[in-house]
């Protein structure tokens, strides 16, 4: 009883902070969802694009640049990184996962170069969260409001875009590239723009996070992909993915639930170092579930290329 009540108290105290965090990280989840689900381009760039956005934003803010402008700059850098991954895959026919790993490894050095050191504090600098209406700056409420507004904007914009003529074409490239090409859609352009867009979201998330926590770190992306995947799967389990609307809602819902779960585990006394193992096991369980239901040995050994996405 004692344990339950203390867990509950410490968890409740963390709810606002966790909520602000999850709304910021929902953009990474979006940056993972778009390539994995919409484009069928399993992509790992986010692991490098997220710290890239953070580093670019951190350096710019340290130099006195307007925080909103810093986010836009981070977004553009993320977009370029995503374009590079897509180009590596399209031009050299390298598997998307390997292209992503190459990109994220190279980005690590680039991020270090951008910052000049591994860690940069911008504590006390102006941030977009200071512009939140009605609330005192510096509290989680301001972050929830700002991240929530941007998130709602992104959701509405994407929900509109994917139903336009161009957006439908982009989804067709993910659904059936050969068919899309035969319908006059350039697979190259769509893939590059789509993966670029996804990485732009990851970078935006990094930039928002740096302004929230007051520092940038080259290692801030470590494990972000698996966290994002876990969040995405929870979101899809809750809201489904049958329609564009639901598929776009899943990252936000998933991020919110996932980080609350993590916070609950930590409040219950789980040692933080075990977190990645727990997340990894969770993702594994979610991926294994369909195959476990089907029973062992059905269909023989799968081909190596049959990745589950």
């Amino acid at each position, binding site marked *: 009883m004692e344990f339950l009540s203390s867990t509950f108290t410490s968890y409740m105290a963390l709810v606002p902070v966790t909520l602000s965090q999850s709304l910021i990280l929902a953009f990474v989840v979006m940056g993972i969802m778009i390539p994995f689900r919409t484009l069928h381009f399993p992509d790992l760039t986010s692991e490098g694009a997220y710290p890239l956005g953070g580093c670019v934003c951190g350096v710019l803010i340290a130099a006195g640049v307007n925080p909103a402008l810093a986010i836009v700059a981070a977004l553009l850098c993320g977009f370029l990184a995503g374009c590079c991954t897509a180009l590596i895959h399209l031009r050299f026919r390298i598997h998307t996962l390997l292209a992503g790993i190459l990109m994220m490894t190279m980005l690590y050095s680039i991020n270090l170069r951008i910052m000049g050191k591994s860690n940069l504090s911008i504590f006390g600098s102006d941030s977009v969260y200071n512009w939140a209406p009605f609330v005192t700056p510096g509290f989680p409420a301001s972050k929830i409001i700002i991240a929530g507004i941007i998130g709602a904007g992104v959701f509405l914009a994407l929900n509109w875009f994917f139903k*336009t003529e*161009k957006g*439908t*074409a982009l989804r067709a490239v993910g659904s059936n590239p*050969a068919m899309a*090409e035969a319908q*006059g859609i350039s697979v190259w352009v769509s893939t590059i723009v789509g993966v670029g867009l996804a990485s732009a979201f990851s970078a935006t998330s990094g930039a928002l996070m740096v302004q929230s926590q007051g520092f940038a770190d080259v290692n801030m992306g470590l494990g972000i992909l698996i966290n994002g995947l876990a969040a995405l799967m929870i979101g899809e389990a809750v809201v489904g993915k049958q329609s564009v609307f639901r598929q776009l809602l899943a990252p936000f819902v998933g991020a919110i639930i996932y980080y609350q779960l993590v916070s609950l585990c930590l409040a219950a006394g789980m040692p933080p170092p075990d977190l990645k193992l727990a997340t990894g096991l969770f993702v594994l369980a979610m991926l294994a579930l369909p195959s476990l239901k089907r029973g062992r040995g059905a269909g023989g050994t799968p081909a190596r290329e049959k990745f589950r996405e």
Partner: protein
Amino acid sequence: MLEIRSARKVFYAGQADEKVALDNLDLTLQTGEFGVVIGSNGAGKSTMLNAISGALPLDSGQILINGDDVTNTPVHTRATRIARVFQDPMLGTAASMTVAENMLLAELRSTKRTLARGLNAKRLADYKERLSALGLGLENRLETKVELLSGGQRQSLSLIMAVGGSPDLLLLDEHTAALDPRTADLVMQATVRAVDNLKLTTLMVTHNMQHAVDYGHRVIMLDAGRVKLEIGGAEKANVTVAKLVEHFAVKTDAMMLGA
């Protein structure tokens, strides 16, 4: 009008298993003409269709559509003028998207895609009408994902998608081969209706000799990457399955004799 001028394509050039798929092939299809291409496996039929659609670059030669040289344009650019129905029903449609969305993609094949809403009421009504012509009930399943349709329904949808917008050239790649006889017949009837009504310039590859006899203005037989035989006009009207098969038989005998 489609013109293929001395098209040449060699696979594994310079290697032991070098294969000449297209051997200076010449072929002209007049505007509004319906050509049926037959030939044994490996005769170059698929290579020719892929070369026309742009999926396979030629080693040399030219491809012209309505007089414009399209030899060096990529697939998606040529798609503004060429529509294609594949043999595999899975290839011609986007499975995870709805029937209406697939229709939309096809409608936008030859136009510039904008940021306007894709599926508006006017378009949905138009798709309903066009699909009802098939008589398969697809008009009531516009919001159904294509992956839930049967192979025959998918292929019928592919056909409606392809003939919409009156393409300059329609390529049919054994498009009834993967269907059961009854569905194959339905799809073939729908094909002929559309081609006749819209006066489409059409090139159909088939292994079905009866189809080759019954449909089209001209039978074109390919062999070893070139046109071996063309039957058109009055001669086409009198041709029989047995006569067409005879031309295959000669070749098979020659192969058996080791020539």
